[in-house]
């Protein structure tokens, strides 16, 4: 390769014992700079935790455990964040329930069904979902998608009124902006990451396992349930958790379509709020304890997503290591 010839062979010479020679200053400096850049990741993560907790400390000390109550009223100095935690849980749950079957379906389609030359274009198309910016999903969601969904919600709502559980979950809507709309938009946004991670996991299933299943006379689906699934279920769980972490942290699209109403209700077609959205919408005009409370919600969000990501990455790495060891 031509680049090798660019190396100046005379550079490190000049000593009779070149192998015992101290490494030149430039070389050591470069090593230290590289190490510092690597350590930057750890430094930033620690700084995020420290500085945001400091800014939020007055909320934690003023409210104590009352931060987990359901009374959010900045005008009356009441900052219970339970409704936002509930909103985050419910929207990301809806997103996961909708995105996971579709993502696993596409991942299986890519790895087990279509020939290689078709899989690349499909990957590009699915990745396009991730290239569309969050705020564009939000703009489309609030101006086009939510009004359209509202008609459908109205039909579903009138169909299920009176039925015990369904009536409580899917009653008549107040507007298109709701937990459910936010959940659907989140599902679109997390599908690419869940798909690509599941695909990576499923692609590691040894060909010999699959061929063995076919040799025993299995159909493709029986091969998938018998050979692919047992091998990759751990990794797919990790991929799903990473998708959950993404869904919890997605901000702007949700801030636009969730309806901005801090309520806890089983009614999925009702407007709600979530942690990321309340920070985005209210931080600008907040000060004092109000600002500390929003900062504190950010700290909680950071802690939740870090925990989920650590677990998910752990699972993914462990399943990857097992596969290398086998």
């Amino acid at each position, binding site marked *: 390769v031509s680049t090798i010839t660019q190396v100046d062979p005379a550079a490190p010479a000049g000593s009779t014992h070149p192998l015992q020679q101290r490494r030149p200053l430039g070389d050591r400096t470069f090593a230290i700079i590289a190490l510092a850049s690597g350590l930057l990741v750890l430094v930033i*993560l620690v700084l995020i935790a420290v500085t945001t907790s400091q800014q939020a400390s007055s909320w934690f000390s003023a409210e104590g455990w009352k931060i987990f109550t359901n009374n959010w009223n900045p005008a009356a100095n009441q900052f219970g964040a339970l409704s936002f935690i509930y909103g985050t849980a419910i929207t990301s749950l809806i997103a996961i329930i909708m995105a996971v079957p579709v993502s696993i379906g596409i991942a299986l389609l890519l790895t087990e069904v279509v020939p290689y030359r078709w899989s690349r274009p499909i990957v590009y198309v699915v990745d396009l979902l991730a290239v569309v910016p969050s705020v564009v999903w939000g703009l489309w969601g609030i*101006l086009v998608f939510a009004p359209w969904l509202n008609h459908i919600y109205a039909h579903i709502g009138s169909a299920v009124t009176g039925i015990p559980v369904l009536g409580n979950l899917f009653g008549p809507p107040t507007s298109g902006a709701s937990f459910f709309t936010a959940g659907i938009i989140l599902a679109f946004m997390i599908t690419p990451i869940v798909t690509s991670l599941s695909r990576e996991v499923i692609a590691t299933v040894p060909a010999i396992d699959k061929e063995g299943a076919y040799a025993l006379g299995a159909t493709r689906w029986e091969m998938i349930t018998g050979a692919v699934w047992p091998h990759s279920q751990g990794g797919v769980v990790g991929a799903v958790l990473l998708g959950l972490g993404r869904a919890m942290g997605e901000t702007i699209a949700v801030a636009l379509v969730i309806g901005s109403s801090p309520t806890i209700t089983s009614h999925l077609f009702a407007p709600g709020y979530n942690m990321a959205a309340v920070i985005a919408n209210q931080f600008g005009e907040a000060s004092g304890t109000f600002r500390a409370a929003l900062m504190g919600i950010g700290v909680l969000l*950071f802690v939740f997503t870090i925990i989920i990501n650590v677990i998910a990455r752990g699972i993914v790495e462990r399943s990857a290591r097992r596969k290398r060891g086998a």
Partner: protein
Amino acid sequence: MTAVTAETQQPDLQEAKGWRRTKNRIMTTLMIISFVVVLIPLAFVLFTVIAKGASVISWQFLTGQPIPPITLPANVGGMWPAVLGTIEITALATVIAVPLGILGAVYLNEYGGRNWLAALISFMSDVMTGVPSIVMGLFIFSIWVLHFGFSGLAGAFALGCLMLPIVIRSSYEMLRLVPNSLREGSYALGATKARVTVTVVLPAAIGGIVSGALLAVARAAGETAPLLFTILTVTTANPNVFSGATTSLPSQIFANANQPYTGAQDRGWGSALTLVAICFILMIVARLVTARFARYSR
């Protein structure tokens, strides 16, 4: 008796029959349907953005200023402050995050090897990709904006924090693909480790590294949440990226999306089309770079 019949019978190599075959077909169809289900919202959102944005976008829309009040129609003023802000802030974030990310990846692959620190950094860098972008905004607000005020630089720091782990991961994957024989050949000629890395390893992986960096830039260019409390959202152009409040395309879309006025909504759609075009162009360039310059690939 059964053994005799088995000998005379031809093995059945045909496709499974009955319910087994039906089930297989149903599941395969469901997989294809799941791809179609993804195509629908993608086509829907792109069609809407292009249809509504194309009628708004003009040379004056992109280069005129200032951004008018929300009640005025979209043919007054222009989005230049936002376009300028997006270009400046994203470029500055790239300048900050990409070199640090590449150096971090160099540490992980060339220096760290299999020691515990490299393993920890690699793991935490993956975890960092999952930190919500709004938290990055709050972080830069606490550590920078409270002391030095709003500026494009603060926004660039926030975007840089988002890009850093993405650049580390993609560069690391590329460095791993560079064959060891290249490094060994270079060491044999007497080069120091820094020299080997800078003149042999990095050039060999540069295609993939650039492509990964461009994808990180595309991701950062579309982010709104980290910018809300770091650059503020103003309506006049601020060419000085290092001080003073400024604005960006995503911030303007967010500010206009919830407004009842058609002028504001039109400005939102026009900005959305501009932003989507920027992100798509960056992604396509990244793919082309991969196809053209990637010497080693998986």
